[in-house]
């Protein structure tokens, strides 16, 4: 029995912490899919779960997609907005999954309270390797700062995702969706962040 089956779907799992812009990134991808006339489902978590807690959003693209959530082992991409949250969602990854992960740590308060250390990025990558060899680590904070705001880290990651060759969405559809969904005065910064992410991932993949 396999961990991964062949389908005509494209599944993206976005994992982060409430407040990181995970939901907006997912909506940008969903809107881009609509622009290309594709069937899509985007799952979101709102309300109490959001307050600084772990947030997961799934984007599923494909003709026969009905359910909003990705099955274990079946993610094409795991887009990690935070290293520990990337680990928390590894059950959706298997050998064909591309993991694109931000290296920007948001330490859970439990660590400080229990006097524990945040694991090293190398340890985290080692754990991801137990599921897949395809890992791209992106310096989202650095690139977002370069673009003009550390709040644009989500756009850096979406850019890095757009660089992936197997993505069924065109770069133009994603940037178009981004321009529609990001508030006008932040569009420029986010486009710049997107492009920096795109260039960064192209270099590695």
């Amino acid at each position, binding site marked *: *029995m396999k961990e991964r089956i062949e389908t005509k779907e494209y599944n993206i799992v976005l994992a982060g912490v409430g407040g990181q812009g995970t939901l907006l990134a997912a909506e940008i991808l969903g809107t881009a899919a*609509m622009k290309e006339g594709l069937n899509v489902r985007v799952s979101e*978590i709102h*309300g109490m779960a959001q*307050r*600084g*807690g772990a947030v997961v959003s799934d984007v599923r693209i494909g003709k026969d997609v009905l359910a909003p959530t990705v099955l274990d082992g079946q993610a094409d991409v795991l887009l990690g907005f935070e290293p520990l949250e990337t680990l928390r969602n590894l059950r959706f990854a298997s050998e064909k999954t591309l993991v694109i992960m931000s290296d920007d740590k948001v330490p*859970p*308060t439990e660590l*400080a309270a229990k006097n524990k250390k945040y694991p090293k990025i190398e340890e985290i990558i080692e754990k991801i390797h137990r599921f897949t060899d395809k890992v791209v680590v992106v310096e989202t904070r650095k690139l977002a700062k370069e673009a003009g705001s550390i709040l644009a880290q989500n756009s850096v990651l979406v850019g890095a995702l757009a660089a992936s060759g197997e993505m069924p969405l065109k770069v133009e559809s994603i940037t178009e969706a981004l321009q529609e969904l990001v508030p006008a005065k932040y569009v420029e910064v986010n486009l710049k962040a997107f492009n920096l992410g795109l260039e960064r991932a192209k270099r590695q993949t």
Partner: protein
Amino acid sequence: MKLFYNRENKVLPDSRVLLKDKPEERVLLLGNEAIARGILEAGIAIVTTYPGTPASEIGDSISEIAKEAGLYMEYSTNEMVATEVAGGAANCGIRALTAMKHVGLNVAADMVMTLAYAGVRGGYVIVTADDPECYSSQNEQDNRFYALLSNLPCLEPSSSQEAKDMTVSAIEISEKLDIPVLLRTTTRVSHTRGPVEYGKLTKPRLKGEFIRDVKRLVMVPAYSRPKHPVLLKKAEMAKEISETSPYNKVVHEGKSSELSMISSSAACNYMQEAANLLGIDADILKLGMTHPLPEKKIGQFLKKHKKIVVVEELEPYLEMQVKAIAKDYAPNVEVYGKMNVQYFPREGELSTRTVAAGLAKITGKKLPIDFEGIDEKFSEIAKELPARPPILCAGCPHRASFYLMRKAYGEKALYPTDIGCYALGIASPLNIGDIMICMGASLGMAQGINRATDRDTIAIVGDSTFFHAAIPGLVNAVYNNSKIIVAVLDNLTTAMTGHQPHPGTGTTGMQVPSERILVEKVAEGCGIKYVRVVDPFKTKETEAVLREASQQSGPSVIVFRSPCTLIALREKRRKGVELVACRITEKCTDCMACIKMLGCPAIVVEEGKARIDEALCGGCGLCVAVCPYKAIECVKLK
């Protein structure tokens, strides 16, 4: 005091996409936004709601576009009032809708049960958004049973498209039968984005006429008694509608005649994908109108098959009825679900995996994915992962209030709490919150606990929850002279559900100014003798008030007033006000008092040293006040 409420700066996209008068245009919408679009297509003139996840975005979307769409919307004080306002308007012949989360229907139930007898003249839809898995709720009750209990028709969408279409259909059914219609979603329908093809917009008719008809509308025993058989007759007519409803149909005709499947709502999505996964090619009867069920249609379907699998989330609502129908139509058919043998879980939400596992057990087929292998591999990762539960934001005024309560009363007092962000106070190190059941219950429970224990009892309740359901409890405390302290955590918004206005904010759902109702005035009006308003970030004053309150011989009310930090920061950014953040200086002795006392997410420990992440810090200065070595300062951010 300046109010910080402002919806214009919302980060999420513009709801005006819902106003597009372009039939056949395809738009990506959240299930809740699709219902909002359905409201515009159905020509609904009055929308009432009390915010609650997973229903909130229905009211919020409408609030943003109500003026342009030419309809009236309000955030009512609670779901009961929301239903009353809409029920009154619908009895003047205009179309109405009320949206609420599942537990909101418990609050509204008194009105709904008898409005079913009286009926409505304009179409009236009650949306109940259920929350399997308790993502943002205190229970996961299955509100389809309210349809059975009230005899009202119930529609259940499985996608954004159906959510929109069924809103329109629900109005039509309501007007055909002159009774309210329930539209039941779940979290995965309300909070999933999917494509929606637009239909035509209908201009709402805002004004109607009230026709006096006491036999129809005044439910005294003599008039309500004959209305019961009238309601039952309408339920029979609803069953005829259900028999021919396009929402109750065979969505897939399979090659195998042996086995077939029945499902509804989000469960049907998982079921169809799970069947594909296992290579099960069976007939699928999808039910979208789930009360009353189409008895004949289901009966005929049962007759054609030997084995029926019923897949549904939460309670065996369909299964029970399918079995009852089978008794009359196909007594030998085998029904598989969750009643006798649990092939599918009765608690939590379903997934393609759980449904596939159940189907595999029933059919003897093998799962094509090695889920157990994945579980095993993942458990190695999971066991070392620190938890990341939702927590109070950095800069949240509730943290200051809770810290001071603990400082003043410690373990001495008991803290019944309520529904809202402040329920997150239960986490360490604040540990405030000893019992929480439902909206407004903290006040009443505090009185019972105080009578039974004679301990200091502090009822914690938020501002929106105060107006929603706490006032009768407050009156009871005065009337029956209960010595409790009521701590109203007033952050000037309904924070948890997305910052909706409430009676204490001075703004309405139509986004116009209104009379601002102050908690302290209400408390005084109810006869509370000791009422104080404090700013929890003024720690010394607040602490003094907390101690004074315990000396009172009767109930007391302390209003902890400070705006939600998310709103305050957003407003400061908008106005270009200089932001501040806290910083730990070289005076720090690594005593970790800030960590141990506050649990603020902005204070992190690196290499044994506390550090403040200025990107997260709200600059509230609470850590400055608690640091025993004066080693934290507030600095301006560039």
